[in-house]
């Protein structure tokens, strides 16, 4: 058993967020500045409830605030995720303008200051052609490593309405990254809005399962064979039973989806990856190793999820694995998956 440290790792999910909407104003046009003023729009806290054990302190709002963490963790590469877009607004024009503003803020505040940093390219799901245009705008930047979407969407992500975005993602060579939580107006369960944060927090895994199946069943990887998808903060221990069921049912009802020509799990294993934080794992290190063997260590990417705190499962995961698997999860898998974007 090796105790692997996260230093020199590729961190696939490191949070930053503007402290207030004012931060974004210089990156917005005059009309949107007055719209924000007229509508008294305030920045929603991306993680809630404030002060809860799982929330942690506020994400870094400036590069200087991020420096202590970077010094402590010394990442080889870190991919910044800004979830500020995951609001409750329904104005697609406003959402597209804010996405552009967030991306430009990320470039100016972080990417220009530290060559180890990459960013998740923020787009809105309310106007997919606008989202595709934003990907095209930044495709040549070279410092965006993935396209960030909330895992909880208004419509499952296999739906054809998203395909223009996937075409742009494939052109740019960028994976789609689905992060836990999401659109405030969408219920975290299929049966309605939960009463408590407790239920909402625990719901991300089954939303991820729905999205995973949607991508495969609706043939996204048949239309976009180079597209890749990474699930951030949605867990992974649920994969073995879900993939078994996915394959089994496909054998009987494949005629509904004849474009799914291989076992569904093969699409997942080829196109999808999952970050390690949070991990829902057994206490016994031997059982942790068994879970990882069933999942396949090649599917896992290290993430700090800083500053959010989900317990010590991420450390226990690395400690329970052999050197080769721990190395793959800390660096090798991510370097292979993101390719050029992390070079």
């Amino acid at each position, binding site marked *: 058993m090796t105790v692997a440290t996260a230093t020199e790792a590729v961190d696939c999910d490191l949070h930053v967020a503007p402290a207030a909407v004012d931060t974004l104003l210089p990156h917005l046009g005059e009309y949107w500045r007055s719209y924000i003023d007229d509508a008294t729009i305030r920045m929603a806290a991306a993680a809630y409830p404030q002060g809860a054990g799982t929330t942690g302190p506020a994400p870094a709002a400036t590069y200087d605030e991020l420096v202590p963490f970077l010094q402590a963790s010394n990442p080889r590469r870190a991919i910044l995720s800004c979830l500020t877009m995951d609001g409750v607004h329904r104005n697609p024009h406003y959402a597209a303008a804010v996405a552009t503003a967030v991306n430009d803020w990320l470039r100016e505040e972080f990417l220009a200051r530290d060559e180890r940093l990459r960013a998740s390219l923020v787009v809105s799901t309310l106007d997919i052609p606008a989202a595709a245009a934003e990907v095209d705008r930044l495709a040549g930047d070279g410092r965006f490593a993935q396209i960030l979407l909330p895992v909880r969407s208004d419509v499952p992500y296999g739906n054809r309405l998203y395909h223009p975005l996937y075409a742009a993602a494939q052109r740019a060579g960028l994976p789609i990254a689905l992060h836990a939580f999401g659109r405030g107006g969408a219920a975290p369960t299929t049966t309605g809005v939960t009463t408590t944060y407790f239920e909402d927090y625990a719901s991300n895994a089954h939303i991820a399962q729905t999205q995973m199946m949607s991508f495969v069943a609706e*043939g996204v990887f048949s239309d976009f064979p180079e597209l890749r998808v990474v699930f951030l903060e949605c867990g992974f221990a649920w994969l073995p039973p879900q993939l078994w069921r996915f394959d089994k049912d496909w054998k009987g009802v494949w005629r509904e989806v004849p*474009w799914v020509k291989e076992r569904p799990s093969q699409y997942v294993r080829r196109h999808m990856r999952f970050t390690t934080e949070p991990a829902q794992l057994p206490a016994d290190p031997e059982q942790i190793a068994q879970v990882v063997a069933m999942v396949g260590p090649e599917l896992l990417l290290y993430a700090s999820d800083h500053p959010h705190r989900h317990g010590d499962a991420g450390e226990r995961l690395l400690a329970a694995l052999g050197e080769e698997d721990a190395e793959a999860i800390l660096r090798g898998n991510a370097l292979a998956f993101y390719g050029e974007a992390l070079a």
Partner: protein
Amino acid sequence: VKVVVSRLEDFPPGERKIVKAGPRSIGVFNVEGEFFAIRNRCPHQGGPLCIGRLSPWAIAEGPGKVTMNGPPRLVACPWHGWEYDLETGQSFMGPGETRVRAYDVTVERGQALGEDVRHAEEQPILSAAARASGREPGPYVAETFRVYVEEDYVVVEV
């Protein structure tokens, strides 16, 4: 061993017969004039494969772009929907899947069969209409015998 299944004229296109040949239950199918025979036991969990639905291939160019291709030569086990090619017995659900035993079926003249043949015992099966309505046949079938000398026979080799 050759097993006589039926008079040819009693076995028109679109029909199937499930026969007992020694210890085995075998489904014999006339698909658009071509005969196929396959073991009536799904290798997955032993389901009665040969009472299942027949379909052609469904070929997808991409999502939503599907054409049906060829004669209905794939039989789906009624238990879990696994499909097998009648000609080869092959399940096409991916590499490593099990194969059902398929048998050669010929049409031969009665005289040519000689003495060394066995006659299959036909097993009652649901008609297509009964299957569609989910009804099971009753347990009793009167024993009948018919004798033909000159006509063509459907013979299954087991």
